[in-house]
């Protein structure tokens, strides 16, 4: 098996002196929609931050296209790898079109502030995320779901084959969660490699083509959802007794938590 575009090699990752993961090895497969999941504080967001070069491993390394990501110029990395962080900040009063245009940063310079290419790519990114009509609206007037699509459009305008998304559905209601995930699935079908941290096990099983389950800073299981979403793994990762049935809509695994005998009715 050839190594994917993003590889974590024997990495110790953490904050300051506190290591969250030690000796971690992860291979992100090319062309897949990888979802990282696990209970709170299992190290999934930390792993994503390491993949996005926001955290530098204190030992081991993260390889982008086979080379240490921290040894490559950060602008060159930004043309390969886009990041949607958990809580990005929209400057007061900024319009949708202006925010999406920020995604062109790694392609611009002091004397290359707005090329015809920039114009075209931004328009495409807004069309792909279905926000073209909102272009002149203020980002702070939008609903949570619309705002998330604007941020995804900004990352798309960066034109990277790899996309990292840190909990893109958190704080959204169910309709908007599905909307964002459908958009991710579409981006994946168009040929991009996606890596997302998600909370919802069933959504992960439905949308991911590759799952990485973590617990206590370690990878517990890895593979296609149909192979690894089993009652044993779910119990092992989440301490949750459950049954697995086929999702009547998609045929993907559906996790049904067991009702406790002593549970109040």
């Amino acid at each position: 098996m050839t190594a994917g575009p993003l590889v974590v090699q024997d990495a110790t990752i953490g904050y300051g002196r506190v290591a969250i993961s030690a000796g971690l090895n992860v291979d992100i497969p090319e062309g897949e929609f990888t979802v990282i999941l696990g209970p709170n504080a299992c190290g999934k967001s930390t792993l994503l931050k390491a993949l996005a070069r926001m955290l530098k491993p204190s030992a081991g390394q993260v390889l982008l296209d086979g080379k240490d990501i921290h040894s490559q110029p950060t602008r060159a990395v930004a043309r390969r790898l886009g990041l949607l962080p958990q809580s990005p900040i929209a400057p007061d009063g900024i319009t949708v079109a202006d925010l999406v245009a920020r995604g062109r940063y790694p392609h611009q310079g002091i004397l290359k502030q707005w090329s015809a290419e920039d114009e075209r790519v931004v328009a495409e990114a807004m069309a792909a995320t279905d926000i073209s009509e909102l272009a002149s609206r203020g980002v702070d007037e939008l609903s949570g779901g619309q705002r998330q699509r604007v941020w995804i459009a900004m990352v798309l305008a960066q034109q990277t084959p790899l996309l990292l998304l840190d909990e893109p559905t958190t704080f959204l209601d169910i309709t908007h969660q599905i909307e964002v995930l459908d958009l991710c699935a579409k981006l994946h079908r168009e040929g991009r490699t996606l890596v997302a941290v998600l909370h919802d096990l069933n959504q992960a099983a439905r949308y991911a083509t590759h799952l990485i389950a973590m617990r206590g800073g370690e990878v517990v299981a890895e593979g296609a959802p149909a192979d690894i979403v089993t009652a044993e793994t779910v119990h092992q990762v989440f301490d949750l007794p459950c049954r697995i049935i086929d999702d009547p809509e998609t045929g993907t695994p559906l996790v049904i938590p067991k009702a406790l005998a002593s549970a109040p009715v």
Partner: protein
Amino acid sequence: MSVQGSTVLRLGGNSIRVRHRTVAAIIGSLAVLFAVAMWSAATGSTALGLDRTWAALLDQGTKGDEFILWDLRLPRLATGLAVGACMGLSGALFQNLTRNPLGSPDILGLTQGATSGALVAIILTSGGLQLTAVFAAFGALATGLVIWGLTRGGDPSGYRLVLVGIGVAAILAGVNGYLLTRTTIVDAFRAVYWLTGDLSGRSWDQAAIVAIVLAAGAAVVTVLSRGLDALRLGEASATGLGVHVTGTRVAALVTASVLTAGAVAVAGPLAFVALAAPHIAARLTGSTRSFMLSAIIGALIVTGADMIAVAGIADRQLPTGVVTGVVGGLYLVWLLIAQRKKGVMS
């Protein structure tokens, strides 16, 4: 081709994007600045009037008029312009770094550091204006470095920078109080006068020094501005976009410290200029930020305040710093009340 509210100028493979609102604000404030500057040059203890000022400017005036203009008023005016621009620019940098509307060299201790330097020069060495300036610049720079060091030499940003800065400012205020108690009444008076900040009697040499600092600072800011703008989306997004986050912030902190040092060394700590200029600039440009506009507004505040200071109260001239303090303070109070009315602050 254009994106809403802006025009793109293209030449070969190069392109520059200008925002209509920002350009209008810059042109408008430059026009006001020019009017204030002309008025300052034409008025004073000897009123030249606009005709004689023009004549003297174009080297067609009387010897006396030309002396008043070229040797007395223009150096003071040029110093005020450069000092104000330095302060406006450094205030904009500090607000960007701290992501806090109150982030300014006055709050973060740089001004207090410059004061400590000046007090040491005045009290321990009874030094003149030049030595005081050198010590003040050194004090501001050293304070900037200490603040960076106390943020553990890593990424100087956000709350950590504000808290460390406020702490440093408090310590230095204590040191300054102590220094003032250790001196003679004559030196104490000179020190207090320096502390107020003033532009009277400034020469072309002093104007040139601040202008050089300003030019160097403006060049660095031009290079940093795209990265600093991307940093307004948050550290994570900026990293994702390929901004060298820590490097950009350290460079911004050093540049802001140098700009403050240069301005304070020559004019003393003119209160509130660095704080108010970026706020006014932001009101004019909306969601975009323009470092250039912030510098122009800073120059406008100092020049305008100096014009009022020269006119004085009952024919007695005031130190420039008194006017910037009163005007800036009033503006800040008005800003807080206006924001409270809008429900931004409770």
